[in-house]
Structures are given as structure tokens and as C-alpha cells.
């Protein structure tokens, strides 16, 4: 039986939130957080 080809929805990249943001060169707080002024001060 011929097996049809299969395709990955993520183009073979199995990435978590932080990998996605890292690959995009984003420099967010803790990887995926945007801070407000008070939070920034606390941080």
C-alpha cells in the first residue's frame, strides 16, 4: 500500500513559547512577558 506523505503543521519545528520568541530575537521579560512601570521597578 502506498503511504501518502505526511506534513508537519510546524514545519518540523517543535518549539515551545520561549523557543519561538527566542528565534524571533524578542527580548521580553522572562521570555514572554511585557512589564508595566511598577512591575519593571520591582523586577
Amino acid at each position, binding site marked *: *500500500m*502506498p*503511504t*501518502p506523505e*505526511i506534513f508537519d503543521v510546524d514545519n518540523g519545528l517543535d518549539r515551545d513559547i520561549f523557543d519561538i520568541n527566542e528565534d524571533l530575537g524578542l527580548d521580553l521579560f522572562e521570555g514572554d512577558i511585557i*512589564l508595566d512601570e511598577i512591575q519593571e521597578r*520591582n523586577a
Partner: protein
Amino acid sequence: IIGERYRWPHTIPYVLDDSLEMNARGVILKAFERYRLKSCIDFKPWSGEPNYISVFKGNGCWSSVGKQLTGIQELSIGEGCDKIATVQHEFLHALGFWHEQSRSDRNDYVSIIWNRIISGKERNFDFYDDQVIDSMNVPYDYSSVMHYGKTAFGNGSEPTIITRVPDFMDVIGQRMDFSDSDVLKLNQLYNCSSSLSFMESCDFELGNVCGMIQSSADSADWQRLSEVSEGPESDHSNMGRCRGSGFFMHFNSSSVNEGATAILESRILYPKRGFQCLQFFLYNSGSEDDQLNIYIREYSTAHLSRTLTLVEQIKDIPSGSWQLYHITLNATNKFRVVFEGVRGAGASLGGLSIDDINLSETRCPHHVWHIRNFTQLIGSPNGSFYSPPFYSSKGYAFQIYLNLDSLPKIGMYFHLISGANDDQLEWPCPWQQVTITILDQTPDIRQRMSKQQSLTTDPFLTIDNGNYFWDRPSKVGAQVIFPNGTQFQRGRGRGFPNFMSQEMLKSRDFIKGDDVYILLTVEDISHLNTQNDPLPTLNVNDLCASFRCENDGICILQNGKAECRCRSGDDWWYMGERCEKRGSTRDTIVIATSSTAAVFALMLIITLVSVYCTRKKYRKEPSSRTVNTIMENQYA
């Protein structure tokens, strides 16, 4: 995060921005359903509230922590972020949650390997004082949907986080669903005492059987047992892990004549949404003809009448193992769920048993793929399997491909196949969202962490040879043969090579009694494509193109007319048909103060005039009276 200013109301207004991919839209709505089931947090489309969350397709997956009081608050679900657990993660940030390893006590539970972290990214591993972050007296949670994975921000493949309990190394960073502790903290933070969609869960472990009642209008009773000699040997909740405990309800059909019935009714339940999904496990050790009827007994609002409606007759129940069933209910008034066991013809040595009932106001999955003897399949030389063929509600035929050849990664793919309705269907298949769930068979639906992934058929997607990916399988598929010899065509598959890991699958209750359940839903989400809303002459864009909103207002369609939704902040807002006017609390204060001053001035004038007139009147009267007055006995 500590601070009431960061809390949202229990119902959060949201906007799904036009930039979002179709699959992301459907996934976000599914994530909302998980919040509705497990917490008191609900979501509603924005209708002018001062603060709301705008979900859009930005660069990456990110959010703010807590309510920002900025009017619009953005949350990005970018490319690759359209996974249900990722959306849950980002919305937990928006609700006020930091990452789990940022807790003040995290060094008691994990070690950070600093020399393995990408240079300059060390700050991502800061943790915070308990004056900033409140752990709400909930233990450190390795399985939190908010925890980093073990290689987060690593400069290689070695772990940057090592759990003090080694068994949890592969647990951190799993993104399946809210953990028990995530739910506990969320519900404590928002003072939740109920949820919108959860109704009932019963594993029959307690003698009160969750308030279920036996009927007097039947021939036999259901019994609460922990084993039956002819089966089941154990209940489904514990599956023999606690021998002697672990109960289920059993209708002994061997002790009654053909046609005899036993009725078990749930306590009275109060619906909020008008649709329900009843899920339970059923075991047959009786006659092949024994059947289970599901009714709802609905009470009218006036409490005067009650109607009993047959919803489903479950026949041909396989014997010898627990089977999962889903029944869709549509109760709108208070109601009971009624389980009626019916003794069929033929010999019976046992009967029917039910366990792990869950009732929620959610949509049932459309199909269930029950895979038995799963651990044997994992070890078999050819580890790839196709599901039986299924039909979507629109009529598309499909199969699921389970790939166990690349362990420890478990792959799952969706294929369109040729089917009976193909001539009547639209091709390439447009905007059908496929949701595949490996069920965590934990008894209580609120504690399950099922792994779910979705993909959507994009009718414009092409492959190398220029064909449309989701075109008719008879056109773009390959010919294959069912085990019964029937020929059909199967299109190319699209899915997830690492749907979940083998380690994850072995955890929790994904495999129970060596059974795995894969729940499938294929639903039309064309209605989420706002740019394609069908309108007689104009589409949404056209209507909104000729209706400009000022001051960053957003144009929406309301009853077929373009309207503006205006921006607002904590103490200011735009208003008017096109958001052209600005208002603020300061303006209100000025208006109120000047109104008060004007009223005061007016009252003062009226008072002065009244006093003047009165005085004038009384000055004149004494002189007119004294003319003819004779004073007598004045000092008597």
C-alpha cells in the same frame, strides 16, 4: 502578582483581531472553554468596557501580567503559538500569574545551571520576593502550565533547570492543561466558588453516590459494588490499584427477567448554557441484548410538570472491558439525568456497570477512537496505525494516523479520505478545524490534563506540484484498501510529529486498563473568518472601509451596520458615532461643579427676592393697622 489593581472582573472582555490566523481563533475559543470549566473566569466579546484584551497575531507569544488599566491590552498569539496550552499560559499571565519558577521558594525545588544559560539571558531566571509574588500557600508545582521547560534559554541541549526530585525533570514545561495547582491558585486569586460549565462528577467512591436516587417505578435497583464475579473485576476510577475500594454502580441483569428495568437518577441539576455533554464509562458482563437508556427528566420553570425524554439507547455494548460513552443533552430547565438498565433476551451471568460520570455544559467530541492493548502496539515492529474512517458533521470523510515509529515522539496526523458525500462537498475543503485529544482518564473532568492539538484546513494551501493540499482525495490522494477489501483514496496527512512524548503518555491516566482514547472533533469554523462574513452586497471590510472611526476606534458590524467601538482608559474615553468626541472624568467634574454653582446661585437669588418681598409686605401692614387702634389694658 500582589495587588488588587491587577485583577480583572470575572468576565473578561476580549477582541479577536483580524490579524489572527483561523486556527488560532478556534484554539483561543477552546482555551476559553477550559477556563469556563475549571474556574469562574469567563470571556465575552468586548462591547465598550473600559478595559479589554485584544488578542492579535504579533511577533511571538506574549502577554502582560495582570490587568494594566490601559483600555486595550494586547496579547500576542503569533505564528506557532496557536496551541491550546500556550493560549492558556498567556492568559494566565494576563490574569496576574508569573512563571512558576519565579516563586520566592523556587531554589528549594529546582537548581538553575547558570553556565548553561545563553549569555545575557540570566535575568530570565530571577525569582521574586514574597512581597511581589504570592504563592497563595500552594506547593511548588512542577506540572504547572506556567513552568519553563528543562532546556529553557539553554546554550546547548543540556538542561538549564534541574528538578530536585529527578522524576519531575520531564514534567516541567509540559503544556497539556492547567495543573491542579494552577486551578487552585486561579480560583483562590479570583475567589471562585463555581464555574460556568462544570455540573457534576461522580466516581461513586462515597456512599451517598453523589445524591443519585433509585426509582420506585422499576423492577430492580442499581447496587454500589467494588467488583462483580463476572466482571468488572474493579472499578474504572482506580482500575484495581486499590483492591477492596473503588466503587461503581451495577445493574445485575442475571437476577431479573427479560424486560426488567433498573433506574438510577442523578440529583437535580441546574443548567446555565442549555447544552450539556454527559460522559461515562460502561461495562457489560450481562447479555449481549442488555441495553442502557439515557433520559433527561426536565422540570418546567413553574415546577408543575416534568417531562421524561429519551435521549439515547445504548445497545450492542461490547463485553469484557470498560467503554467510554458521550451523550449530548440539551436541557434548558432544571433536570435529572436518568440511567435505565434494561434486561435483554439471552443468557446473562452479570449485568451493566457504570462509573466515572462527568456532566458539563460543554460540547461533546464528535468521535472517539478507542485503542485497546496500547502497550503492545508501542512495542510492535510496525508502529503506525490508521483510525477507522469517520465523517465530520459537514460530511467530510477522514482518518487519523497515529505514528509510533519515531518513539519517544508520538505523532498524530489528519487525512481527508474519499467518502460518500464528496460530490456535494466544497473543495478544497475550507476551514474545518480538526481537534485531536488524547484523553487523560482521571475520573474528575476538572482534574484532567488531556493533551489537545488543533489544525485547520486552509483551502488556499498548496503543495509543491501546485495542487491544493486539502483538495478532493479522489483527485490528490493515493489509492488504498480497507481491511474489508474496499478501495478508497487517502489525501496527504497534516499534523504533529511530536503530538506528545511517550513519557507523557505513560503519565497520569492516559493509558488506563491498557486502553487509550483519542477524541476527535472536526468542526466548521468559517464563521470565525470575519473578513469573509457573507453580506448581500458588501463584506465587513467594505462596510468598515466607508465608515472611518476616529481616534483609533475599531469598526465592527452590529446588525449588519458598521459601528465604532471607541478607545477608553481609566479616566477618559472617546464617544460619538465615530469616536470623534473625547470625554474624561475631569470634564464630568467640571460639569458637575458648574451645575452645582449655577443651581446655588439661582436658589440664592430666589431666596433674596423672597426675603425682600416679604419684608416689604410686613413693613407696610403695621402702619395701616395703627390708625384706628385703641390701646387698652396694655400691661394687664
